[in-house]
């Protein structure tokens, strides 16, 4: 670990990244091969969705101590296929108030946009495909990561328009909530990525993966990683942030009026979006398709080349998918206002502060803040960087100290000592004892009961009771 830290924080041993251009080499890739690769990615995604829906239901079943789908195919593996066929052969009613064109357009947007972002994800390094040496990645560009954010914001239209065009109350509220949720968390997501860009000096996915050959960015940008993982759950409207559906209050949220394959598009879109954010997270923070540190060293990096990359990439991506399912099986939904408060009052300011910290650390590393440095174990460390890190740590500690103190004071002020004994009728209305409290049987209880029974029962009718208007 200390060695890793040294690599992460030391002065870069290699020359600084010369350019922001994609590192992957597409020169030996004819147009038809690009199309074949797009087809491969497309099929890869569809198959993954087939598996993940089964996987989610099985794992959630396991968490809830029931078997989950286990009838169709070995271990119920073909369950999703059966679901798909069922969706396909369902009637597709459209409410008479709905806007005909937009109602269909919305589901098409959702079903189309979810595939697009995956075009810039590197599934593996250079591989041999039909006699050409080409990166297993449809395309890459100098603004690739930003493009996925842009695509996500276009995809939000699928949700907003679905709610608007349904001509029904619940979907409209679901859609508004959901798009407000997506845009709120998109900011923190974008800001979290800035730290990665500062380290990599590029927004191209293949360059970012290449820059992580020494150390994965999960270490130098650990806080960004945490923020990204939180926001990716918020972005995909998954539990515990599934407020868009909010079954308790909004029926099905924005897709309440959708049925058959038009609903299927949203279903598909949700899962593919999960794959996209997970793939993005493994690419940006976990070294993409590169083998994990121990394995990468075996036999002069034999597992770190060619098609092996696809295995590592898939494993890392599924790690996050499992995390999604785990969250769903474990946590209840949080309230919408709590969700928004967390996003706006914690995630955004914290991420901006973190980005500035990273900028300072990196600046010190590059010698912007003075050139004096010392070396430990063969690596040079700039003095300014240690100074910045120390300052930030002190500041973080101070904030934590103030916060904990304040919380303690609050808890102290709120603590209410319950008396050891309680008279249940003291307030005129029977109350049960708190845990640990002893009940004092009131002596007058019996007489009171008798008195109450002795009195003639007064029947209150509507005329007699003056009804207070409801507010």
């Amino acid at each position, binding site marked *: 670990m200390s060695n890793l830290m040294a690599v992460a924080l030391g002065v870069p041993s290699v020359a600084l990244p010369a350019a922001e251009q994609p590192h992957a080499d597409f020169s030996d890739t004819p147009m038809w091969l690009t199309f074949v690769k797009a087809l491969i990615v497309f099929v890869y995604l569809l198959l993954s969705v087939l598996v993940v829906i089964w996987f989610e239901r099985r794992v959630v079943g396991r968490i809830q101590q029931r078997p989950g789908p286990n009838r169709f195919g070995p271990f119920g593996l073909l369950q999703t296929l059966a679901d798909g066929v069922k969706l396909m052969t*369902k009637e597709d009613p*459209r409410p008479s108030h709905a806007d005909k064109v937009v109602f269909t357009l919305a589901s098409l947007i959702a079903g189309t946009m979810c595939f697009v972002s995956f075009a810039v994800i590197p599934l593996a390094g250079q591989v041999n495909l039909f006699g050409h040496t080409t990166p297993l990645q449809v395309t890459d560009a100098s603004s690739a990561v930003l493009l996925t954010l842009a695509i996500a914001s276009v995809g939000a239209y699928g949700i907003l328009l679905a709610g608007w065009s349904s001509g*029904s109350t619940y979907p409209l509220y679901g859609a508004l909530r959901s798009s407000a949720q997506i845009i709120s968390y998109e900011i923190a997501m974008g800001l979290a990525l800035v730290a990665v*860009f500062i380290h990599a000096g590029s927004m191209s996915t293949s360059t970012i993966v290449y820059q992580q050959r020494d150390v994965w960015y999960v270490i130098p940008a650990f806080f960004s990683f945490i923020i990204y993982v939180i926001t990716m759950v918020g972005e995909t409207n998954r539990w515990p942030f599934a407020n868009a559906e909010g079954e308790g209050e909004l029926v099905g949220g924005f897709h309440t009026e959708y049925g058959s394959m038009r609903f299927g598009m949203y279903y598909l879109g949700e899962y593919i979006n999960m794959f996209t954010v997970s793939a993005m997270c493994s690419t940006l923070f976990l070294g993409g398709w590169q083998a994990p540190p121990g394995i990468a060293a075996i036999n002069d990096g034999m597992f770190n080349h060619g098609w092996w990359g696809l295995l590592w990439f898939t494993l890392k991506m599924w790690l996050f998918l499992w995390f999604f399912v785990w969250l769903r099986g474990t946590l209840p939904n949080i309230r*919408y206002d709590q969700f928004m408060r967390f996003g706006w009052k914690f995630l955004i300011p914290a991420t901006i502060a973190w980005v500035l910290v990273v900028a300072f650390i990196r600046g010190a590393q590059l010698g912007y803040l003075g050139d004096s440095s010392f070396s430990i174990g063969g690596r040079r460390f700039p003095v300014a960087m240690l100074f910045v890190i120390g300052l930030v740590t002190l500041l973080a500690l101070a904030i934590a100290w103030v916060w904990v103190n304040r919380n303690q004071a609050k808890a102290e002020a709120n603590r209410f000592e319950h008396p050891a004994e309680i008279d249940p009728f003291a307030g005129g209305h029977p109350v049960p004892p708190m845990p640990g409290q002893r009940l004092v049987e009131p002596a007058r209880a019996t007489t009171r009961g008798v008195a109450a029974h002795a009195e003639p029962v007064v029947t209150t009718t509507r005329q007699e009771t003056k009804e207070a208007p409801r507010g």
Partner: protein
Amino acid sequence: MLNNPYVPILFMLALGFAFAAGSVGASVLIGPKRYNKAKMLPYECGIQPTPRPEGGGRVPIKYYLTAMLFIIFDVESIFLFPFAVAFNKLGLFALVEMILFVATVFIAYAYVWRRGGLDWV
């Protein structure tokens, strides 16, 4: 144009659209069609839907504020991206400028927070 790196994205777009349109179209063709009025009503837990107000109803103004704040931070992050990418070449001056910029936008943020614009309820 054809070796522009963004052209393959159109491939993905086309594949996705073909799949989406194909499966939605197929389900319309395959699926049964049995009309009745109750099916065409908006879903409200099996009860008769409340009549919609004139113009379809209005949404709370709260969403306007959220969208506006979103734009503000979006523009801020747009400036942070090139700053981050070119950080190695920009030097101390850009870092100072960026801190000034972030601090100024933070004034807006603090104002909105203080006035209660970030409280959802």
